[in-house]
């Protein structure tokens, strides 16, 4: 082949490759550490004069369209996968952008995706439309509309974030969710603890108990209406149920001793927990409908921290039957108990991913604490983060993010103690502090509120 022809062929192939790339719709890979977040422009949602003034009267918010776009922007940024661009650089106004974006304007500021929308107030209901555009391909990717009561406007922002996330990553999102946790205050020797709940982005924080008795380890039911937790009400540590809507609390069962470490079964029908008697802790379930109690483990060791697989067929739990804390898996009837942790150190707090593929855990080795994951047969152990003290991971509903808590050392005067919630992606990247009014521990992630 002549040199000239070779060159032409080469450039032609190169040209073909680039052509294909420019026609493919944008995709975000969340299975590997993403050091190159996708630049996205979140335009403030448009609303006309009338809607503006009506909403200001109703909600005392100046520009709801702008506020909703901020919710979306914040969610996308926190995920570590997207880079929302500065609004000051936007060239097109929200109303026009939503109807017919001039893609060159948006490409100019290096944005690859564009989110636009419109807010309408009709018959006292809020109607929000939004569109997701592929800037480089010049196409609309997604167009949806939602109607709700005006005070739910933050949830619209979260739902839009979930839809955008799902469209671009192929995975379900985790933004329209809540976190329940224990709020902590006071000296270490006399901590005041209260149950607290907040939106996943830290807003709408609410306390569910008063702090008069010690409360620990709250967990959501899959239906998100109920929470199970441990309370020392009347100095009797027992597992309780709390209805988030009504505030009604109820003790689970009638056990003649301490019950603790509660979780719900995936169908929400049972509570699984530990029951301690005469120095031995075993795992039991109670059916919330017929109140039938079933004993699942029967061993003189400590058996605790049970967690169901998402299909309800297996349970992973923590036991020291081999001498030290290790992780085990058994069938949900208690048969076929198998140890799965074999690394160096102590293992605790096993929790099954909602995707069914992994079990997250806390590990203690040579005085350091680790949050890690392993496959359900114990292989592929991966440690995500190390610290002086941290424990109790909980999965986001899409099984991609873990929330946990950390405590600091105290100085020689016994001061300087703090406990905070942190999150980290499954890839080990995007480790983040989650801001809470008070100190916090024992976080648990709800499933998606929209189902």
């Amino acid at each position: 082949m002549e040199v000239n022809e070779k060159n032409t062929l080469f450039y032609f192939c190169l040209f073909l490759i680039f052509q294909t790339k420019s026609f493919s719709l944008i995709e975000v890979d969340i299975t590997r550490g993403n050091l190159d977040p996708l630049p996205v422009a979140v335009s403030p949602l448009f609303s006309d004069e009338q809607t503006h003034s009506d909403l200001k009267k109703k909600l005392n918010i100046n520009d709801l369209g702008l506020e909703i776009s901020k919710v979306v922007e914040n969610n996308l940024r926190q995920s570590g996968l997207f880079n929302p661009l500065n609004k000051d650089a936007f060239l097109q106004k929200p109303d026009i952008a939503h109807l017919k974006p001039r893609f060159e304007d948006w490409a100019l500021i290096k944005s690859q995706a564009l989110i636009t929308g419109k807010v309408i107030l009709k018959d006292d209901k809020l109607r929000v439309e939004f569109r997701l555009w592929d800037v480089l391909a010049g196409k609309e990717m997604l167009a949806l509309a939602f109607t709700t009561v005006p005070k739910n406007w933050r949830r619209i922002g979260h739902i839009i974030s979930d839809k955008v996330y799902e469209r671009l990553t192929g995975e379900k999102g985790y933004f329209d969710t809540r976190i329940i946790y224990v709020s902590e205050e006071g000296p270490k020797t006399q901590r005041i603890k209260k149950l607290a709940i907040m939106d996943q982005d830290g807003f709408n924080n609410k306390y569910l108990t008063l702090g008069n008795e010690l409360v620990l380890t709250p967990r959501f039911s899959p239906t998100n209406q109920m929470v199970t937790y441990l309370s020392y009400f009347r100095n009797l540590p027992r597992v309780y149920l709390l209805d988030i809507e009504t505030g009604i609390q109820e003790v689970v069962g009638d056990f003649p001793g301490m019950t603790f470490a509660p979780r719900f079964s995936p169908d929400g029908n049972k509570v699984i927990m530990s029951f301690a008697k005469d120095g031995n802790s075993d795992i039991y379930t109670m059916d919330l409908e017929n109140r039938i109690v079933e004993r699942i483990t029967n061993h003189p060791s400590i058996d605790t921290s049970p967690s169901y697989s998402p299909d309800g067929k297996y349970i992973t739990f923590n036991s020291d039957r081999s001498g030290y804390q290790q992780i085990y898996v058994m069938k949900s009837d208690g048969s076929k108990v198998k140890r799965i942790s074999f690394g160096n150190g102590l293992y605790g707090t096993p929790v099954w991913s909602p995707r069914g593929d992994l079990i997250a855990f806390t590990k203690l080795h040579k005085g350091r604490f680790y949050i890690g994951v392993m496959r359900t047969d114990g292989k592929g152990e991966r440690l995500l983060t190390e610290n002086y003290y941290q424990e109790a991971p909980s999965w986001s509903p899409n099984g991609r993010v873990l929330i946990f808590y950390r405590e600091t050392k105290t100085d020689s005067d016994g001061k300087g103690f703090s406990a905070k919630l942190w999150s980290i992606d499954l890839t080990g990247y995007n480790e983040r502090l989650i801001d809470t009014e008070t100190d916090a521990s024992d976080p648990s992630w709800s499933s998606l509120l929209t189902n």
Partner: protein
Amino acid sequence: MELSKIYKNTFLIVLLGFLLTACATQKKVTTDQKMDSQIQGDVYTGTDGVKYLADGVPDRVFFATNESVLTTASRETLRKQAKWLRQNSEVTIVIEGHADERGTREYNLALGERRANAAKDYLMTYGISSSRMTVLSYGKERPVDSGSTPLAWSKNRRSVTVKAN
């Protein structure tokens, strides 16, 4: 002449060496002694925070990391408690079990319960009826020492006998 000088110098160097190691060892012994008076075999042996149910009857026993085994000293304390309980037959007690903070929360709740039960079982062998005793675990929730040192942690690994009436 040369040889004796060599021997003399070698002797002096070796002597110096011994002196140095002697100093070092002495220092080590002092520190160990200080620690020894507070922790032995990972179990707290001091009196910080210890209260008394009656004259000469300490209210608590201590444990090694991850253990619920009673030491000789613990058994002696519990025998004193049993004697006092036999002499005051109307007293009922709550035995509170605790763990240090260097472990996961739920396992520590179970460990506290196991420790409190170890104390209860021992009291029963000395004639105290189980109807007079309740067990309560606080896991790592109620440390007596908020420090982040092995000494502080050892004070928190305890089972405390509390008068209930």
